[in-house]
């Protein structure tokens, strides 16, 4: 029987774990272990995104400024990626990421990962496909959150 810890680790690393070894060989040497303390800001909104992060353990709040206040958008956990702006031309972040607990990540420097993707388009495409799946999951979760908030508001109005 597979120990539960191994299932957890395989899930946390799924962005990389699903790639072919020939692609992993190019990506793994670029990566760095980066740790954050509870409350630490991992990146700010409208910052230059220096890293693409894969969360290995811990929880992160994604937040944005609205009407002068920071509002919580989503809670990310092991297996989620954040800072994909690192892969875009302007590299500007759209949200703020704040560690809620001790957070452990595998971080890819933006320039290094962009160069690796451009140098090996097959690997770049494989990574983008996996990232897109994670982004889609994230969008679905955000939609569900909107539906829940609207539902709660309607129930409160009827009461």
């Amino acid at each position, binding site marked *: 029987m*597979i*120990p539960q*810890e*191994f*299932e957890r*680790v*395989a899930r946390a*690393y*799924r962005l*990389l*774990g*699903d790639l072919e*070894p020939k692609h*992993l*060989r190019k990506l*793994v*040497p670029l*990566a*760095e*272990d980066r740790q954050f303390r509870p409350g630490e800001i991992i990146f700010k909104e409208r910052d230059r995104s220096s890293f693409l992060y894969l969360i*290995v353990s811990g929880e992160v709040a994604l937040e944005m400024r609205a009407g002068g206040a920071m509002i919580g958008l989503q809670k990310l956990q092991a297996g989620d990626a954040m800072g994909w702006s690192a892969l875009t031309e302007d590299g500007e972040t759209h949200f703020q990421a704040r560690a809620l607990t001790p957070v452990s990540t*595998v971080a890819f420097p933006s320039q290094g990962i962009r160069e690796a993707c451009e140098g090996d388009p097959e690997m770049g495409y494989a990574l983008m496909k996996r990232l897109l799946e994670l982004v889609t999951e994230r969008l679905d979760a955000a939609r569900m959150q909107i539906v829940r908030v609207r539902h709660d508001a309607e129930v409160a109005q009827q009461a």
Partner: protein
Amino acid sequence: MSVEVPGKILEEYAVRRNRLGLVEFGGTRRPIFLDLVPDAHVGDYVRVHVGFATERVSEAEALRAYQELAEHEETAELALQADESTPDAARRRKPR
């Protein structure tokens, strides 16, 4: 200076589409991906980066790395003791 220490594979498992191993580094045990070292199995030593074994190393090389780490730690401790005995360190220890 940091010394990279190889780990020893104690157990291995197929999980999802990956192969993971329980790898021991001087008393600490962690699950590590073994997909990049297809020839490494239980009892072998591997070098690890961000959770992935990147290279298989011989037992002799692994033991040499452990020895270097022990010497490095000893040197670091001596350096710390020497620093603590300097007048600067004594000043730093003075209560304000």
